[in-house]
C-alpha cells in the first residue's frame, strides 16, 4: 500500500511528463485497437457484401472472376449462360430461389444489371439485410429502371426521370440505346455495398433494348418502337450468371457438383462466402502491414515509458537514498518503479480505450457510409480486455529496465549520494 501511495504521489509530482506519457500511450492503444477494428470492419464489410446466397452459377471460368462480375461489378463475363439452362435450374427441386443477372450495359460508368423481382425478394447482404426502396417502387414495365442509391445521388435523379443506357461497359466512345429510354421508378436505400453503384432493370428491358443490336451495332431497320412492345413479344436468350438459394444447406454441395457436371453447357458454381474469404486472403498482406504498423505504434508508446522513467532516475537518486534510510529495500525500490510504470500503462490503456470508443461512436457512421467499413455496431469487445492485459504486461516489462537500474543504483549509492 505504501508503495502504491509513494508511486502515485511521485507520478503526480511529475504531472506534465507523466501526462504526456499517458496521452501518447492512450493514442497508441486507441490506434492499435482502432486499426484492428477497421481491419475487422473492412473484412466484415467485404465478406458480407453478399449473404444467404449458397451458390453463384456462371459460365465456366475463374471462380474469382465470376464473383467479381456478379457481386462487385468488376470485370466482364467471358461467356453467358443459355436461358434454357437457367430455367432447368429454376425448376430444380433442391433450389429454393434464384436471382438471374444479365450484364453488359452501363449507365455513365455504372453497371446496368438485368434481373427479376427475385432480386428484391431474395438478395441479402450483411447478415439478413434485404433490399428496400427509399423512393418509388420496383420495376414492372419493360422500360422501368431502379437506381442504386449512389447512382441516384451522384446524378441527382428522381423518380420519374428518363435516362438512356449505353451499350457496353466502356464509358468512352460508346453507343447509346437512344431509341429505348428508361424511366426511373425507384431508388434503393443505401446498402454500403456494390449494390448502390449499379442500376437495375428487368430481363425484359435488357432484351428489349438489344432488339436490332444482334450484330453488335444498331441496325436502324430492326430497332423496336418501345411503345408498341409487349412482354409477350420478348424472348430471353441468355443471362450472365445467377445466384442460388438452396432449400437446405446440405443441398449446396450436391448442387455445386451437379452444375459442374452439367452435360448441356459448361457451367460452374461457386460458394460465395468461400471465394470472398479467398479474395480477402489476397489482400492479407495489407492486413499484415496494418498490424505491423499498429505494433510499432504501441511499441513506441511503451518505449516512451521506459525513457521517461529512466531519465528521471538520476535526479531521483537522493529520493532513493532517503527511502533506503527509511528501511525500504532494493526490492521495494524495484516495485516502486514498476508500480509507476504500471500505473501509467493502466491509465493510458483505459484512456486509450475510452478514446477508441468515442472515435468509433463518432466516426463509425462516417466510415460505414464512405468506405463500407462496417463497425458491426458492437463498440465494446471482449478481445479489448485481452489486448489491455497484454499492454499492461508489456508496460511492466517496459518499466523493468528503469526499475532494475533504480534498484542497482540504490544498492550502489546506499545512503550516500554524491549527486
Amino acid at each position, binding site marked *: 500500500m*505504501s508503495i502504491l*501511495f*509513494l508511486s502515485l*504521489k*511521485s507520478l*503526480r*509530482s*511529475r504531472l506534465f511528463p507523466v501526462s504526456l506519457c499517458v496521452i501518447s500511450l492512450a493514442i497508441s492503444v486507441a490506434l492499435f485497437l482502432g486499426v484492428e477494428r477497421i481491419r475487422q470492419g473492412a473484412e466484415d464489410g467485404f465478406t458480407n457484401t453478399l449473404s444467404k446466397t449458397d451458390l453463384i452459377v456462371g459460365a465456366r471460368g475463374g471462380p474469382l472472376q465470376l464473383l467479381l462480375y456478379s457481386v462487385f461489378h468488376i470485370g466482364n463475363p467471358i461467356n453467358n449462360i443459355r436461358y434454357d439452362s437457367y430455367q432447368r435450374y429454376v425448376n430444380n427441386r433442391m433450389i429454393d430461389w434464384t436471382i438471374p443477372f444479365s450484364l453488359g450495359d452501363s449507365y455513365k460508368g455504372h453497371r446496368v444489371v438485368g434481373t427479376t423481382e427475385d432480386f428484391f425478394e431474395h438478395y441479402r447482404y450483411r447478415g439478413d439485410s434485404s433490399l428496400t426502396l427509399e423512393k418509388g417502387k420496383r420495376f414492372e414495365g419493360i422500360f422501368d429502371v431502379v437506381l442504386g442509391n449512389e447512382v441516384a445521388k451522384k446524378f441527382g435523379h428522381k423518380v420519374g426521370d428518363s435516362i438512356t443506357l449505353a451499350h457496353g461497359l466502356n464509358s468512352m466512345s460508346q453507343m447509346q440505346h437512344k431509341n429505348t429510354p428508361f424511366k426511373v421508378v425507384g431508388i434503393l436505400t443505401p446498402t454500403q455495398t456494390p449494390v448502390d453503384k449499379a442500376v437495375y432493370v428487368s430481363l425484359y428491358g435488357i432484351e428489349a433494348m438489344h432488339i436490332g443490336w444482334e450484330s453488335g451495332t444498331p441496325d436502324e431497320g430492326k430497332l423496336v418502337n418501345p411503345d408498341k412492345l409487349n412482354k409477350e413479344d420478348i424472348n430471353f436468350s441468355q443471362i450472365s450468371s445467377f445466384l442460388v438459394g438452396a432449400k437446405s444447406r446440405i443441398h449446396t454441395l450436391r448442387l455445386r457438383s451437379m452444375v459442374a457436371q452439367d452435360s448441356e453447357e459448361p457451367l460452374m458454381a461457386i460458394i460465395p462466402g468461400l471465394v470472398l474469404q479467398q479474395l480477402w486472403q489476397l489482400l492479407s498482406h495489407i492486413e499484415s502491414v496494418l498490424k505491423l504498423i499498429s505494433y510499432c505504434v504501441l511499441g513506441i508508446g511503451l518505449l516512451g515509458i521506459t525513457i521517461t522513467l529512466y531519465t528521471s532516475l538520476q535526479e531521483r537518486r*537522493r*529520493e532513493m*537514498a*532517503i*527511502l*533506503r*534510510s*527509511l*528501511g*525500504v*529495500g*532494493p*526490492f521495494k525500490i524495484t516495485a516502486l518503479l514498476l508500480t509507476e510504470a504500471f500505473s501509467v500503462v493502466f491509465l493510458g490503456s483505459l484512456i486509450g480505450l475510452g478514446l477508441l470508443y468515442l472515435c468509433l461512436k463518432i466516426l463509425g457512421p462516417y466510415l460505414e457510409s464512405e468506405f463500407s467499413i462496417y463497425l458491426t455496431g458492437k463498440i465494446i469487445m471482449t478481445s479489448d480486455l485481452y489486448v489491455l492485459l497484454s499492454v499492461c504486461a508489456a508496460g511492466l516489462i517496459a518499466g523493468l529496465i528503469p526499475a532494475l537500474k533504480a534498484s542497482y543504483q540504490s544498492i550502489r549509492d*546506499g*545512503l*550516500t549520494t554524491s549527486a
Partner: protein
Amino acid sequence: MSNALHVIEINELSFSYDAQKEILRIPHFKLEQSEKCFLYGPSGHGKSTLLNLITGVLPQDKGSLKVLGCDFLTTSGAKKNNLRGQKIGYIFQNFNLIPYLSVKENILLPARLFGRSQSWVDSQKECDELMEKLGMTEFADIKPAQLSLGQQQRIAQARALIGKPELIVADEPTSSLDEKNTAEFMKLLIDSCEKKDLSLLFVSHDLRLEKYFDKSLSLKNINEVQA
C-alpha cells in the same frame, strides 16, 4: 534482543569494497543505551562507509557488528531493512525530504512504511504534536522545497523521531545551517532524545557541537585505516 546493553557493538570490524584497499578497520566501538555520542569525522575517514554499515545498508564482511541486539553478520538484508525502518531514525546532511510529499506526509513516512511500533492514529497524533513543537503546523501541507534549510532539517528530525525508534543516526545534520538554526536544531534533538530515552550517534566535523554530548570520539582514532 533490543534490550541488550549495547546499542552498537563493534569488534574487529573491517571493510573493503575490493580486496586490495581496506577502507575501515575498527577494533572496538560501543554505543550504550541512551548514550549520546559525538563522533568527530572529517570526510575521508570512512565515515559514509561506517554509517552505511551501522544502518545495515552495506553488507558487512569481516569482524563483528551488532546493532540493537542484531548480529549483522548473520542477519539477512531484508531483516536489516526492517530493523532500520522500525528502529533507526536517520538524518542526512541535507535534502532529507521526499520532494513530492508534503511536510506531514514526510514526517509520517516511517510510520506509513513500517509502523514504528505504534498505531497509525497514534502516529498522526504524534506528528501533529511534533509539528507544533517545531512550530511547523502551518506548513503541514506544503512541499519541502518551499521551506528554508533550517525548517527542512527540523522536519527531518521529526521524521527520525516519530514512533518508537531506538537509535538516531545523524550525518552532519547541521552542516548547512547557520549558528542560530544549529543551536535550535541541537537543542530540540538532544531534548527529544532524552525524553524518548534514545541512543544517538552524531557524526560531524564541527567540534563546537561536542558540548551537547555525553561522549566524544574521533573517527580518526577508532578507525585504524588512515586516509
